[in-house]
């Protein structure tokens, strides 16, 4: 049974590898051993269905054609035949057992996440992904970078429409990477078809999965579980690179994080904060509070001309740093650094007619986050 399955796998993948990349009709073969196994299973069960379908529908359409009343056909009168019935129960059971064996084997290898070389924590958040390289002090959020103008059709849509992010997850090839997955709010599902990883991220709970990528490249996917308004705008991009290249990237990111940390202590000019703040606002905040701060009440309140926000700096900072429990407003203390928080608070307090003149320094924010 196992042999015949291997055989099926070989022809089916030979079938599709020729058209693997241009193929937008079928499941991708993918770039991991697991994804290729899954593709084999998929094609095997598909052909089993096709064969059964041809036989059953063949008999059916033959009967419809042959035994027409209009041709004066007289009906027979049999209505049971135990041995035939036993036969057509037994054969499907055997076929199913034949499918269950390779499926079990694949499933078992998917569940074996031991001996990983790298751990990445993936956190779903309405509506972005956060990636943390555990033990490496590198962490960032990944937001969709397709512009609103493209979605509204005001601009030409580019090739990776809705599937582009500002910061892809970077992974090394040929190394076993373990994913730990959770969520800050509702259930999301992290999915990259070419890696054959689809796993729910569940608030308060941790899920595990792993991947070992065989080929460098850029692999795109999306959130697969309905998670609210912007469920459709939460892409996943994985950039798989050679191991040395990955090490270099990681070192660079660490250095950049240190640079950023030094920025906390210096005194910032309002202009710089505003410029930085606008970038942060447009990538992080505008998906809910809209690009001009007009919001989308009642779910997403307006920030422009918001009296409470204008009058109460402390309240405003608390909102951004600690979030609102049970609402889409996350606690940004763990996902943005003090410079970014200071910048975005300064920006929202001085943009769209919110002319408070307040300048919030990163040092003040840092003090509030970690005392």
């Amino acid at each position, binding site marked *: 049974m196992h042999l015949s399955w291997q055989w099926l796998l070989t022809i089916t993948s030979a079938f599709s590898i020729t058209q693997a990349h241009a193929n*937008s*009709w*079928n*499941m991708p073969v993918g770039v991991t051993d697991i994804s290729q196994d*899954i593709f084999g*299973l998929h094609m095997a*069960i598909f052909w089993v*269905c096709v064969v059964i*379908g041809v036989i*059953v*529908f063949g*008999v*059916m359409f033959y*009967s*419809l054609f042959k*035994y027409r*009343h209009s041709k004066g*056909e007289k*009906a*027979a009168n049999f*209505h*049971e035949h135990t041995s*035939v019935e036993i036969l*057509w*129960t037994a054969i499907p*059971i055997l076929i*199913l057992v034949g499918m*269950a064996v390779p*499926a*079990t084997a694949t*499933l*078992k290898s*998917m569940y074996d996440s031991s001996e990983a070389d790298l751990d990445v924590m993936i956190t779903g958040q309405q509506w972005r992904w956060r990636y943390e390289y555990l033990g490496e002090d590198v962490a960032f959020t990944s937001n969709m970078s397709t512009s609103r103008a*493209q979605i509204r*059709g005001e601009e030409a849509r580019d090739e990776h*429409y*809705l*599937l582009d992010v500002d910061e892809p997850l970077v992974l090394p090839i040929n190394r076993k990477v373990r994913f730990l997955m959770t969520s800050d709010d*509702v259930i999301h*599902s992290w*999915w990259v078809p070419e890696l054959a990883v*689809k*796993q*729910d991220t*569940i*608030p308060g*709970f941790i*899920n*595990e999965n792993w991947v070992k990528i065989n080929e460098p490249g850029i692999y*795109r996917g999306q959130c*697969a579980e*309905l*998670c609210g*308004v912007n*469920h*459709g705008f939460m892409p996943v991009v994985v950039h798989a690179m050679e191991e040395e290249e990955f090490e270099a990237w990681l070192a660079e990111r660490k250095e950049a994080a240190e640079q950023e940390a030094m920025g906390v202590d210096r005194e910032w000019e309002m202009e710089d904060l505003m410029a930085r703040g606008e970038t942060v606002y447009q990538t992080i905040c505008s998906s809910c509070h809209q690009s001009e701060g007009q919001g989308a009440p*009642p779910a997403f309140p307006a920030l422009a001309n918001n009296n409470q926000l204008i009058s109460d700096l402390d309240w405003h900072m608390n909102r951004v740093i600690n979030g609102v*429990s*049970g609402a*889409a407003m996350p606690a940004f203390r763990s996902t943005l650094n003090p410079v970014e928080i200071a910048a975005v608070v300064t920006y929202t307090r001085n943009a769209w007619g919110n002319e408070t003149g307040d300048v919030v320094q990163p040092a003040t924010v840092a003090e509030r986050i970690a005392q």
Partner: protein
Amino acid sequence: MAPKLPPQHSLQHSSTAAAGGHSHHDHAAQPKGILRWVLTTNHKEIGSLYLIFSLTMFFVGGIFALVVRAELFQPGLQLIEPEFFNQMTTMHGLIMVFAAVMPAFTGLANWMIPLQIGAPDMALPRLNNFSFWLLPVAFTLLLSTLLMPGGGPNFGWTFYAPLSTTYAPASTTFFILALHIAGISSILGAINIIATILNMRAPGMRMMDMPLFVWTWLITAFLLIAVMPVLAGVITMMLMDINFGTSFFDAAGGGDPVLFQHLFWFFGHPEVYIMILPAFGIVSAIIPTFARKPLFGYASMVYATAAIALLSFLVWAHHMFIVGLPLTAELFFMYSTMLIAVPTGVKVFNWVTTLFRGSISFEPPMLFALAFVVLFTIGGFSGLMLAIAPADFQYHDTYFVVAHFHYVLVPGAIFAIMAGVYYWLPKWTGYYPNERLAQCHFWCSIVGVNLTFFPMHFAGLAGMPRRIPDYALQFADFNMLSSIGAFFFGASQLMFVLVVVMCVRGGKKAPAKAWEGAEDLEWSVPSPAPLHTFETPPVFNRTHHHD
């Protein structure tokens, strides 16, 4: 001695059976006009009410689907905002499941079960009236949430917590209330059906003499009794989480969002069978009629239905293969799900073998029944593919799943309902439905259904997640085809309304036995069936025409 098959029988008419019951004491002072319909306790009138309600809701749910398809016609956001899009997908699902498919089957049950078992009415006529009138209340309430501040339910018809609890719009409490009322209606309907079937059969009719439609509905009613309370429990827990500070499904308070899914699918999977088992019954009545040959394997059919119903309680977590179940659980649910294909396959084989060496004609009910067999089987195949857990990691929550369950529900459940309507319209109205228009309706529906749902398989395999208001460019062609198909299918259904309306008003006269090969008890009463039938129980004889 050849084995005997039960649903072939003749009937000794008691002299009053067909005479109608105008003089019956219960109905002496019958209200007139609209009140007559509001207060009716007659199973035929209530059956009609159910069917009219469900047809109306079919169009309401259909319009929601068309709003969704219109937005998905092209990439980008053109017509509606994502927030409203989510409300539309949710409402489409809820309305179609709870207000269109389920009440349609209940309506058919109300009309046909008493006629098929030789009972004068349902066992509990006043309860019957009450359970119908709960439905318009429930769904008016549900639809009104769309107008509430914050909008209606926007979390999908599966309403996974915590999206439907902590993060839900304010109207969710009303959504829960509406679902409670609809659930009570279903439960009362189920009690009534069980009580009717078990106690009201004509003298001499044993369980195994009942037509398959009665059998499948009996099993469905037991499923309803078993799982609707679980749904009621789940939404009650949601209500408590939202309003009373409990945390059944909230991790923050020590609850578990995954528990919600376990409970929901413990209800939800049998619910899927609730929507398909009566369809099996209808098709099992129509195919022998138009093949002029007894149903192959009547006993197997009954047993397979029971086996499917039983297995449906053991497979719920196949909807949850990607929530992070332990390996053992994953394997258990994969195996049990694969096994459910066996009794389902037996049914398909039985239908095909019934056709084999028959004498087949192609009236509209038969066309829909044959389309059911083929397209339901295709839905079954994709179901089998989805059962393979590792492959499901790729299929899960994509358009492949959308294609799968629409193949099972649209050309499955809904085609079976339409087949049933065409089959029994002569009995209800006394006239045959317009043949040419019905044929046209059929062929347009076939084209529409396949054009709508077949490309969804490809979109899903190519990686399109479900429930997204906008999509990447590589899915554009599939979506455009689907949208064109959806509008075509939707428009074709207007023909159905036309056929029904025309048939009520007149047409070719139908005799008591409207179809040559029809054998069940309902064909022994005149067409149209008088308001009161079988007031004196008929004597049921098991004889066998074909021996």
